[in-house]
């Protein structure tokens, strides 16, 4: 079965589909034992079960098709810990011919939908019976979120909370565009969604939406770092304490975070009344206290106990120049940090601000809050500093030039899109739990998640990424969010080659309708003997490249680019010499089997990519790219690493061509997709024709069609991507063509002897050919 087909069923991509049974052998594979997991991958056949999952009383695994059943005594054996578990009464009818969906062998993935307030009234007997047991198990296993379930059952359904944090140093026109978008968002929000508004310049204003006499805002000083308690005290949210003291529980009604249904008028007014802060001292950047604004929004959400999932959406147009999280001085004489400054230590605020935001991450995670950053600015806004909380909470980061851009608009609309039932397509407050058989250990995860530091004997001490746990918290996740999990062989456990091992991914999340869902994926693979050909056969080079890319960028956070590249090269060489087919010392004899053949090429493009080579990017951009790579699935990651190039010509249908400068030709149109940019590049001849207006000439219908085809396809490419890529239409030799040229393999440069009439790229970078030559030479050295 093809890996991609397998993925469609499991939502998983394995770098190795067969695992060697010993740890040393596993290490020698160089590409770690890992799984790229897309927990909420959309699947047409996904069964949704309207009742609670049945858990193993020992390891917490969910009943799955791999369990051995004893119908007569109504017992099931947990496939992970082998514990005997009785079936509850609701499963009384179980039998060979009457299996619940989760036991169908074909359903490796099922989803449980329960505690859904909407369904509560008419829930089946089974689910209602299991309610109590469920909530107890919830309490034990999800202590960090246990408060939610309790609250939920008491309260009416409260929707997710959204706090808009708006930078009023933005120019008036920009602000106008932003306000329009926000108004639209508010209008479309479900009635039960909570909204809050924070605006900031040198001061932070938290808007009171429940005060009808006039517009009321609470002001925070932009320079002061405020604690959660202070924020709540300042906002008057300190009710619980009073209750404990036995005083009359003055539950002061707070008006800062209200359901849309209650405050639609007020929030609309408040948004409309946002105005650009006047007065910037000449020669200075506007005073922005982004950090404090985020703290205020965070404190507000914490205070309102709205940790049923919420978003802090920051809309800013420039760097913080004040208070915690400051990026640069307001004086224009000090310029904003570059990568060089970071390397040389010339960024006075960088480390302080980064660590400030890193301290924000756990708070976000504890309260299930997502932080989104929408930066619409020509300059940097300090996304590099802000990256940690955005990434770990799973929030969006978007860097565009203007709030008026369609990218921004589309992105925002996409985020707030609803399903048919009017629920937001947003999943909050999620956790992923992994249960495995005892012969392997969990090392960690890379992706937009936070380790919950829950340990059991399946957790390895060897941490990779977010490790030391079998459970991770995700502020939010989409159907495309992808995590890579790392495993190792459990040495203490004698593993028999040929035996199977299983892994179960339990993803609990809050659905857009605020109901809790649990998606359970159970998969099994086999252990194989060392050096077994099955190992190589099970190699998924695409998944491996994605995993390596994540590892590389994780390394790049702490190391300099050249060290990362060296590590990549080194790994690749050893990998090649392990899996290559060659005669010692004879580079020309080097061969790779087909499922390895593309891997070196991926590595070549990876080491040239903006993820590793930051030469042409600002720290903000780099942060953004890395953040995106770290959550994208295998397919998307590969596009980021090695963009695709399609050629459109009169000769036939579009064909993929080499990502090489030689692919450029005057009479073709190229469609280039690097995930972040989509470039439609017209060859000089085509461009000329177009300029002459031939495409409008009915006699040249085919030219018009040729011109249209890539545009249609480009639209198709970006339709599901968030943030929406930038589409660049350019002609050969135009300045915009640089987006394409920069990514092409420089097989022809100014130094080439034979240009063959091809375009050339001015660069000293080595071309793919040279790279491969070197690789072969080095790999065969042994």
């Amino acid at each position: 079965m093809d890996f991609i087909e397998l993925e469609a069923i499991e939502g998983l991509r394995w770098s190795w589909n067969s695992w060697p049974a010993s740890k040393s052998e596993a290490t020698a594979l160089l590409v770690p034992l890992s799984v790229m997991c897309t927990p909420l991958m959309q699947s047409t056949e996904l069964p949704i079960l309207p009742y609670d999952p049945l858990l193993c009383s020992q390891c917490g695994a969910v009943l799955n098709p791999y369990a051995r059943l004893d119908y007569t005594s109504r017992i099931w054996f947990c496939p992970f810990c082998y514990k005997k578990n009785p079936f509850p009464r609701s499963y009384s009818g179980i039998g060979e011919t009457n299996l619940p969906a989760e036991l169908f062998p074909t359903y490796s993935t099922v989803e449980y939908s329960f505690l859904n307030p909407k369904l509560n009234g008419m829930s089946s007997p089974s689910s209602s019976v299991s309610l109590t047991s469920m909530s107890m198990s919830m309490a034990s296993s999800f202590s960090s979120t246990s408060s939610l379930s309790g609250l939920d059952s008491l309260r009416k359904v409260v929707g997710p909370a959204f706090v808009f944090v708006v930078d009023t140093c933005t120019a008036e026109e920009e602000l106008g565009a932003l306000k329009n978008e926000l108004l639209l968002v508010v209008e479309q929000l479900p009635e039960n969604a909570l909204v809050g508004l924070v605006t900031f310049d040198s001061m932070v204003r938290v808007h009171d939406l429940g005060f009808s006499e006039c517009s009321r805002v609470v002001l925070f000083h932009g320079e002061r770092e405020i604690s959660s308690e202070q924020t709540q005290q300042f906002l008057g949210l300190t009710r619980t304490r009073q209750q404990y003291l036995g005083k009359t529980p003055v539950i002061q009604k707070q008006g800062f975070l209200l359901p849309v249904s209650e405050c639609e008028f007020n929030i609309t007014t408040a948004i409309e009344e946002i105005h650009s802060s006047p007065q910037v001292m000449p020669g200075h950047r506007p005073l922005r206290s982004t950090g404090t604004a985020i703290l205020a929004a965070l404190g507000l959400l914490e205070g309102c106990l709205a940790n049923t999932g919420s978003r802090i959406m920051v809309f800013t147009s420039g760097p913080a120049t004040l208070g915690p999280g400051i990026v640069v001085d307001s004086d224009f004489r000090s310029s904003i940090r570059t990568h060089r400054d970071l390397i040389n230590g010339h960024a006075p605020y960088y480390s302080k601000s980064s660590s400030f935001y890193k301290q924000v991450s756990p708070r976000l995670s504890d309260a299930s809050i997502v932080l989104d950053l929408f930066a619409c600015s020509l300059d940097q806004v300090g996304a590099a500093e802000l990256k940690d909380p955005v990434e770990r909470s799973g929030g969006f980061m978007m860097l565009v030039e203007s709030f008026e851009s369609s990218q921004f608009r589309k992105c925002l609309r996409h985020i707030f899109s609803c399903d048919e039932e009017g629920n937001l397509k947003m999943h909050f407050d999620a956790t992923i739990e992994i249960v495995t058989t005892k012969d392997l250990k969990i090392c960690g995860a890379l992706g937009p998640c936070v380790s919950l530091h829950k340990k059991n004997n399946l957790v390895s001490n060897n941490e990779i990424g977010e490790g030391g746990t079998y459970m991770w918290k995700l502020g939010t996740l989409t159907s495309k969010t992808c995590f890579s999990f790392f495993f190792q062989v459990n040495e203490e456990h004698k593993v028999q080659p040929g035996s199977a091992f299983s892994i179960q991914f339990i993803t609990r999340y809050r659905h857009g309708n605020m109901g809790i869902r649990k998606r359970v994926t159970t998969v099994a693979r086999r252990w194989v003997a060392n050096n077994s050909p099955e190992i190589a056969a099970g190699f998924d080079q695409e998944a491996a490249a994605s995993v390596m890319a994540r590892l590389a960028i994780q390394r790049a956070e702490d190391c300099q680019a050249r060290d990362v590249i060296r590590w990549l090269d080194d790994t690749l060489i050893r990998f090649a010499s392990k899996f290559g087919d060659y005669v010692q010392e004879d580079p020309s004899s080097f061969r790779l089997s087909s499922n390895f053949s593309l891997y070196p090429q991926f590595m070549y493009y990876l080491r040239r990519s903006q993820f590793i080579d930051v030469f042409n990017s600002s720290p903000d951009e780099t942060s953004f790219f890395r953040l995106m790579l770290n959550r994208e699935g295998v397919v998307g990651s590969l596009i980021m690493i090695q963009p695709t190039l399609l050629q459109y010509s009169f000769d036939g249908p579009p064909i993929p061509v080499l990502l090489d400068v030689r692919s450029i030709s005057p009479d073709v149109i190229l469609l280039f997709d690097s995930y972040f940019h989509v470039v439609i590049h017209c060859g000089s001849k085509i461009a000329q024709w177009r300029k002459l207006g031939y495409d409008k000439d009915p006699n040249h219908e085919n030219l018009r069609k040729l011109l249209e085809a890539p545009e249609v396809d480009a639209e198709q490419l970006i339709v599901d991507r968030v943030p929406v890529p930038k589409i660049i239409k350019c002609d050969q030799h135009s300045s915009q063509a640089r987006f394409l040229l920069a990514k092409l393999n420089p097989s022809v440069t100014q130094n080439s002897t034979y240009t063959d009439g091809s375009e050339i790229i001015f660069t000293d970078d080595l071309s793919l050919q040279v790279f491969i030559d070197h690789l072969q030479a080095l790999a065969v050295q042994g």
Partner: protein
Amino acid sequence: MASHVPPGAPRPASKANNPPSSQPPTNFRANPDSLADNLHNLNFNSAPPRAPSPLPGTPFSRQATQPLPPSVSPFPPTFSHPAPFASRPPLVSSASGGLASTGQPVFASGALPGGQQRFPPLGSAPQPPVRPPPTMAMATATARAHPQPQPQPPTTTSRPLIRSSPIRTPPVQPASPFSVAPQARQPPTTAYTYGQPTWPLQPGQGAPPPPITGSPQPPRMYGMPPPLPNQSMTSVSPAVRQTGAPVPGASKIDPNQIPRPIPGSSVILHETRQGNQANPPPPATSDYIVRDTGNCSPRYMRCTINQIPCTADLLTTSGMQLALMVQPLAIPCPSEETVQVVDFGESGPVRCSRCKGYINPFMKFIDQGRRFICNFCGFTDETPREYHCNLGPDGRRRDADERPELCRGTVEFVASREYMVRDPMPAVYFFLIDVSMNAIQTGATAAACGAINQVIADLPEGPRTMVGIATFDSTIHFYNLKRALQQVYNPLMLVVPDVQDVYTPLQTDVVVQLSECRQHLELLLESIPTMFLENRTAESAFGAATKAAFMAMKSTGGRLLVFQSVLPSIGIGALSAREAEGRTHISAGEKEAHKLLQPADKTLKAMAIEFAEYQVCVDVFITTQTYVDIASIAVIPRTTGGQVYYYYPFSAVSDPAKLYNDLRWNVTRPQGFEAVMRVRCSQGIQVLEYEGNFCKRIPTDVDLPGIDCDKTIMVTLKHDDKLKDGSECAFQCALLYTTVYGQRRIRVTTLSLPCTSILSNLFRSADLDTQFACFLKQAASEIPFSPLLLVKDRMTNLCVNILLSYRKFCATVTSSGQLILPEALKLLPLYTLALIKSKGLQTDGRIDERSFWINYLSSISIPLAIPFVHPRMVAIHDLNSKEGDQPLVPPVISLSTEHVNDGGIYLLENGVDCLIYIGNLVDSDILRQLFCISSVDEIPAQFVLQQYDNPLSKKLNDLVNEIRRQRCSYLRLKLCKKGDPSGMQFFSYMIEDKSSSGLSYVEFLVHVHRQIQLKMSS
């Protein structure tokens, strides 16, 4: 006797003799007017009876006349017996003395020390020839008059007796206010008339009038007013004497005979200098019109003594204080010339290059006007070329009369660039309103908003007027007034929640040009009370709010008006209810009671100093029904040149009107911003200390973020050298300030007074009102730091020591049995008693009330200070009975229960409160007319004065309005009735009564007398 006295006679002599030594006669013009008006003091000397004589018929002003009759009756007896109290004119000594002596007893108020003999100095001076009894005559005489019923048609008052005032009858001033001469001459005759009675006595005593010769100077001493040539010796007049007391015992003092203030009914015309001599000013509490002829108007600056003692020893001997009361922006009377503005252009006003004194009429130009000698430091400066002018034959510059700075005591210079550290600040008014639960529920917030709303219209017009507004409870709420974009103004409230470490929104948002936001402001003010209607926050962050508001106006400075209703309980400068704590620990409370009158901590003081530095002046309007710790709060207004207004217990019915009027006056009265003031003195004298509401950062200057017409600063002086007898000592107050319209000005007020080495001169020229105001302020500043008893003792001692000094060195009477009071200071005992019985010095008073009392006094002007402790009481039930054009304010009644009848209605006011006491048996018709009630029982607890359609009511309204005008205060009106706390409150003002808080007036006099005797003998 009279004959002896012949004033005329002595005169000449005196003139001859004294001329040099005692400049007096010439200097002082007897201003008939002033005399007339003034009650006792001044007039005495000068105008003695003589004046009247010329005009037999008219002579006596109503007042004067009145006194006689009553007195008459009593007197007779006296005659035979010595009057216990003899008010004696200094000079007269003989005469009065005689009298006094005859009577064994006791108190002689000798205006002038009669004892020439005793007191050598006097003798040496012109005095030797003691003054003729004449003056005395008058006073005493009148009193004694018995023999012959006064010629005059004395009306009623009994007081007359005591004071010489009657004498001044001349008040006639009408025509020629300033020329006294005529009168002076006559004296003899007149004296006769009046004096006659007296004289007779004298002979008996053997106190011969002869001394007459020496007489001339005496007048001077009184210096005050009218040194009529003849009368030089004024008389004892006011001496307290117990006419009726046949019995020697002090106890026999007739309460009707003791000195009491008698308001003058007529307006005095006063020229500040006459004949190149300083003219002693009329009493501060009288009605007068000033013509600035070189010295400043006494409204702006006056000295406790109108002659400056040459040595520190002399001053010490006198027991008096030497201090200036400066009220630089005082409001002149409408008929006075306004202060002229002089613009010297870019070069700025001419100043002495050494001491930086400003050019004034007393700078002496020499050397053809090319140089001038500074009257402060004595340095000879070059006249700036463009300012040069030749001298006339009289040694004055020829242009002296055209240049205000050379002929006026008060001028205002346009400040040039060098006087500005920045552009003159705009007029910024920031209103800060308490909206905590209490404030809302008592209606204080609504009252404040309403008042502000009305006052907005009164703020100065123009683009330079900026306003801001904020409210606070446990947080601070600013309002963005700028948002003009919406069609419908929706105020934006900006809440600052951090009251420990405050901050403010952008100043541009919250402090806005009035012209831009007038409607917004009005709308906002209307909605604030409803906006917080449901507020359940009881806490109040006064300190933090004040600080936040300050920060919002920091860049410009301005006036911050705070409306506070409860004890600040949270945030910076939070206070505790220490009054209650004090009560629970009574043992500690007794000893440390005064500590409650001190600020609780230094936070607010530190804040206040910062405010002052940035030219923010804070006024606090306290509208409360509980303890708010004024002692601590008041630090802010005191340091920043503001003031405390106190509405306790706040009533939503009766107080809003006063609040509005107070606020209105606060913003509309003449005032200045970012001011700096310094007083310079001639060599030999230097400023010891400034006291008032200001901030002092360097020793020589006071910083006044705000200064207005009501604020008075006391400047105590000390000698650092001897002064030359016969020279003049000058004082100059320079106030650099910014007007509300943004002009930078320097108001320069110069006062030049003669120096004297004669003690009796000091007594004669003592300025009672000023001295007493000075006492008050000292007492007020001492109370928080010493036990109450000590303060009371000290105040009594101050009084005793002055009288002792006079008795010892100036009075002629040898008998120790008499209490002799200097004419000028004869009311000192009464005032001292009033002070001792005042709220500030009562242990049982509420702490806040006492703190307010203390703070109110710190900046109060003289004319308001006196009534504040010695209130005015008038009867209003019979307003109708007198027809005709009598003055609006009916005759004053002494503050004694015996004058309060159950059938009457009395109005008592002290410039702040106004109590209307309704007797039990008042005619219900009157009640109906005045208050629209039919019986005393219906008296409303909260009273609003209304005008009903009847003449009585109209008269009452007119009266109250007149008082309001006089006091520049709206007054808190309250109805009182017997047997009710309100009645108790009313009676607590009956100073002359014996009460739990102190002696009766008579007893006090006896007490003082004993003290003097004790000290004399020791």
